[in-house]
Structure formats: structure tokens, C-alpha cells
């Protein structure tokens, strides 16, 4: 049973890691625009800021 001394902290650490990622995803606004995320996946390129020269339309 002494292996529990390692296993329990490891399990807790992994769980906390997941929780941390979840909290980060809420804080960074990833749940704010769920419909938009579904649409953005269809866009070809990332939009680059301040590049007036390429393909002026």
C-alpha cells in the first residue's frame, strides 16, 4: 500500500493540471463566442494585423 504515497499526489497533480487548463480557458474567453468558433474554423488564413500591402481589395 505504500505506493499510494506516490500515486495519490500524482493523481491529484494531474487532476489539478486539468482544472488549471479549464480555468485558463474560461478566463481567456474561449466560452464567450461558441458560435463564432464554429465559423472561424472555415476561414482559410489567420488574419494578420497591419499588412496593407498584401492583396489590397
Amino acid at each position: 500500500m505504500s505506493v499510494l504515497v506516490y500515486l495519490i499526489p500524482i493523481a491529484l497533480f494531474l487532476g489539478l493540471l486539468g482544472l488549471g487548463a479549464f480555468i485558463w480557458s474560461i478566463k481567456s474567453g474561449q466560452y464567450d463566442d461558441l458560435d463564432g468558433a464554429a465559423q472561424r474554423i472555415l476561414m482559410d488564413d489567420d488574419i494578420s494585423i497591419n499588412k496593407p500591402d498584401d492583396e489590397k481589395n
Partner: protein
Amino acid sequence: MEQCKRISDKLQISGEVDSNALGYEGLVDRAIDGNKQLSILVSGVHCAGCIQKIESSLAKEQDIKSVRLNFSTKRLAIIWQGEDEYANDLVKKVESLGYGVKPYTPDIAKEETKLQEHFLLLCLGVAGFAMGNIMLLSVGLWSSSSETMGVATRDLMHWVSAIIAIPTIIFSGRPFFRSAFKALIAGHTNMDVPISIALILASGMSLYETMNQGEHVYFDSAVMLMFFLLIGRYLDMRAKGVARSSASELLSTLSGFANVIEGGNKIKRIAIRDVREGMIIRVASGDSFPVDGIIKKGRSSVDTSLVTGETLPTDIQAGDEVYAGTINISAPVTIEAIRVADDSLLADIVRLMEKAGQSQARYVRMADKAAKAYTPVVHSMAVIAFLGWWLVGGIAPQDALLIAVTVLIITCPCALGLAVPIVQVIASGKLMKKSVLLKSGDALERLAVIDTILMDKTGTLTVGKPVLQGEYDQEIMQIAVSLAAHSSHPLSKALNNAYKGNYLDIEDVQEVAGKGMKGKYNGKLVKLGSHSWCANNNDPSSSDIELWLSIEGRSSIKFIFKDSLRTDTVETLSKLKKQGLDIIILSGDRKEVVENIAKECDISKFYSEVTPPEKFKIMEELSCKGHKVMMVGDGLNDAPTLAGADVSMAPGTAIDMAQNAADIIFMGEKFAPVYETYNIAKFYQKLVKENFGLAVIYNIVAIPLALAGLVTPLIAAIAMSGSSIIVIGNSFRLRLGK
């Protein structure tokens, strides 16, 4: 394209306006590190292409730091470095792409729900993490006994569970504790009271057991209970997320700018709320009147369909009164403000809506009714268990308390908490596929019990646009359409829609305000317009919507239009009547028109020429008599009634204000969604009742076990999740059905 044309129209007409002064510089916020931020609402965004078009073209502009369009809220946030005035250039850039722009007024109520949603999601995440980890330990505890595992190991596992569970319950239990506390302070009880008591007692007792090396440790059940309940709570919140906005906020959606003429001919754009009585305002054609006023200069026609429900535009000239919110159609006019925004007819309607909103808050949701009946039963059961075991059964008070707490844990309304929200979410998903948008969570509950439907006519039963009736000579048609192409009058548009072919070249085309169009074709004068202007005096005038074409030297021709019913209106109405619902038509339109439509739909009860307050009164009287009323409407004139009725629906073509006031929005050309939604609501009602029934059956099985003191932590955990899963499974039947 239409958008672009309208904007260029405006720029042309208000040529003397300083083109830089759009007024957006006043709305610029300071962002961190000295950058400027502007938030605007963009209309006409439909797809990924729109997002890309707007974002990439703005990103190419100078000094832009970031640009992000939120597709769900249609809110565009631009951050740049530089002057406030740059905002106007950016707005113009978006407009030139063909999208409409409105100032975004941060809406505190909505921000608040957003924050609450985040808070619940956070609580849910933490509870999920804790549940996973505690279960990991609990599986070990359940599958062995203290003999095989050893008391020390078991206690270690209990302590680890306690260390995870107690902070989690303090953190994630807050939504329940807060609401329970509020209810208790106000002197009544709700579903959160037994939940909070069960959570606190379960964790408190488990901690006590852990410290005394006991075996009745329920941390897993407590956290699991909380996790399931938070799922229900979060789903409930999401369903309410797009809920009805308050009426005062609606007024701000109509906010915008007015072009005020100062000192002769200088035009200044000011916010509508700053317009004062006596100010002279210029209203371009295609714009809506910002305040109630009297026409000073110009002749035009006004589309009052939003306010009065009238299908045809009314002609206006100097001296006539116009109402805020109506649309100026044919020519620019100058008006003098006679009532400021707060006193306008529009504001009256808003106030009526506010009143309506308050009256509706009295509705008690089914879940709350269930909680009211449930709480006392559960609490007295626990007390009986405690007193019974202690006084009659003769065991120690600590052990009796243990049994009482087990009763509370096992009866905790886990399944009840899920019974409503899960059906709600599945129902709204199913309706979404049928292009019906559910705006308030309990709308279906209210829809299922209605007995009377009030229907608006224009735009609800009918398509809302006049359609040309009958066949006409090809040449005549060609001349008429070629003239009509120069005008934006609804009848001209209808004529245009009915024609496919080439246009003729007509010279000297002029729009004569309030009368029609005239021009020269092959040297002959041609006129298209009203009866009095185009027809000979002996041509009969009728009650139909009509347009006359006169060609010099020939007798004049009459075009007849009708605002026709939606293709499936009659069928849908008869299905609704078969369900025993009483249907009444309420319209602001003329009596003959309403009578015809009522006859076509086979409906005997109708009211014509009713004003918005009258519509509201008819609805109120019906409610007072004990009827449950649904209102279906699309215009501003329907908005108060929509807000005040027990439940309301609006078509997707309705104006913003009506859509905001309605509980349910249906999209598309068809009327059938009204019936389909009613059907789903009925099924929804049935499922919710079944779910409550299942929860009760579960309790009938579980409570005797708990009362007998036979429940172990394992049985508690199985019972808890088992009942929730059964309820969820039953709710999914809604997906399978029809």
C-alpha cells in the same frame, strides 16, 4: 447591396453634414496602455466569410492593434493607437463593406448574466475535478473493507477525500448556499434549502466520522450531488442566457443619432436622447423618425406599419404629425420635435412593456412548485428519523443523527434538479433544428397550458409584403415596372418583384412626393401612382390596395395588390383549433382588410383598427378572466402585448423590439412552426411530469432504506447517480419523438 445603396443615399441627402462627424468619437473608450477601444454592433453578419471580410479589411488599416468580431453577440471590438476621431473612419470602413453599424451600449444586465455563467462554469469545473479524484479513492474503499485494507489506509483515504471535498463544497456550493440564504432571509423556502442543508450536513458529518475513524463517510456522494446539480443549474442558465431583456434596454436599441439643423443650415448629429422640444430635425428618406414631431418642410410618405400595423404608407405633408419609430419613405423632410424621446409614443409603448414585464414575473415555475411541496416532506422525514431512532429505537443521539443525515442526502433533489433543465435543453435543441429559437427557459411550460391565441395580421398571418394579384398585359407591365424601378415605395417594389424581363428607357423620371412617379416614354407622359392622381374621375376606387398607371391618350390601368397569407397559415390555424384553442385576430389595419383575412382563415373573432394600448387591454381582460393567452405578433404595436401575454411568439422578420419582447422566435416563410412548437411544448410538459414522477418513485424506494438505517456510502452513491441517469434517459425520448 441594398445596405450600401441606402448608406450612399443618406450621404447624398445630408450632403451638408460634416462627413467626419458620425458621432462615434464620443463612444471611444480608453483601453490599457493608452490605446483606444471602440465597441459597435454590426448587423448583417451571417458566416465565416463575413467575419473574415470585416476583420481582415480593418486589420489592414493603420495603427490597428486588434480587431475581433464576436459572432454570437455581433459585437465588433476594435483597439487602435491614436485619436478618438479615427473611430468614424473605422465605422465608415465597416459600412462601406455593406454592413450596418449601430453604437453598442454596454448592457449591464447582460454582462451580469455572462459573469454568472462563467461563475457557474467555474464551480462546475472545480466540482468535476473533485468528484473525479474522490471517486478514484472511493472505488478502492467500496471494493474492499477495513479488514482487507487496514484501518490506517482507509482513514488515509478518508482524509485525502476530506481535503479535496471540503474546499470544493465551500467553493462550488456557493450558488446553492447564496440562493438558499436569500430565500430563508425572505422568509420562504426553495429547492436550494434542502440542497444546502444536505451538502453542509453530509460534509460536516463525514468530517466528524473521519476524525473518529468511522466508516460512514459521504464525501463522494456530497460532491457528486453537487456536480449533477451544477450541471442542471448551468443548463438552466444557458437556456435563460438569451432571456427577455428589460424594456428600458429596448429603448436603447432604438437609440441612434438625429440630424439637427442649427442656425439656418448647419447640420449637427446628436444622440436622440439629447433632442429637445422645438429642435428642427432633418430626416432623410429611408430613415426612421427619431422623435414625435410635426412636418415643417417637404412632402413624403411614412411607413407606420411598425406602430399602427397599417399595410400601406400614409402620405404626409407640412403640418402633419409623425411618430418616432415610423419610417420616412419617399423624400427627405424637416420636422420640428414636439415630444422628446422620453414622451414619445414609442416611450409610451416601452412603459407599457415595462408594466407587462412586471406582471409576468408572477409566474411560478414548475420546478419551484415541486420544491415547495417537496421541501417540508423531506425535512419532516429527517426529523422523524432522528427522533424515532433516538426516542423510540433507543440508540445514541449521534447514531440517530447519522441516520437522519443519510435520509437528507439520499432524498436530496438531485433528479428533481435535473428534471426540468435537461428537458429544456433537449427541447430547445430540437426546436433550433426546426428554426425556432427559444428565448426564455420556461416559455415551453407556459406555452403548454394556453387556451387562447391572439394573432397579429400583418407580417404574422400574412407575409407582410404586398404581392401583385392577377395577370396584366406584357407591354403595360413593362412600362409600369420601368417607372416603378425608380422608387423605393413598397408597392413599386412589389411590382418589380412580379416582373422578370427587360426595362424600358423612360426619360425625365420624377418622384412626386405623396402622389407617385412620372416620366416620358416615346414622347408621351406616363404616370404611376394613386387613384386621385392617375385615374379618371369615373374609374371606381375600391377597398383593395391599388396602384394606377396612366399613359397619355389611353385609359388608366389598375394594379391590385394583396398582402397574402403565408402558404400554410390556414392549415396551421385549423390544426390549432382542433387542439381546442381559441384564436382571435388583433390588427391595426382597416376593418374590410381584417374581415377578409379572417374569413379566409375561417376565424370568427377579430378586432380591427386597434391601437397598441388597446391590444394590450384586450389581452389583459382575457387574462383577468382566467384565460392563458399566447400572443403572436411582429410589430412595435404588438410589443407590449407580446411582453405581457403569458407566452409570446414572433416571426424572425419582426422588428428587434418585438423579437426582444417575445419568448419564442420562429424563422422562415412558414407559419407551421407555431403549431410544431405548441406540440413540442405539450410533450415537454409530459416529460417533465414523468421526470418528477420518476424522482418520486426513486424516493419511495430509497427513503425506507435510509429510514431503516441500511444505507451505506456505496448505496447512496449508486442511488444518487442511478436516479439522475434515469431522468436524463427519459428526457432523451424528446429527441426520438417525431
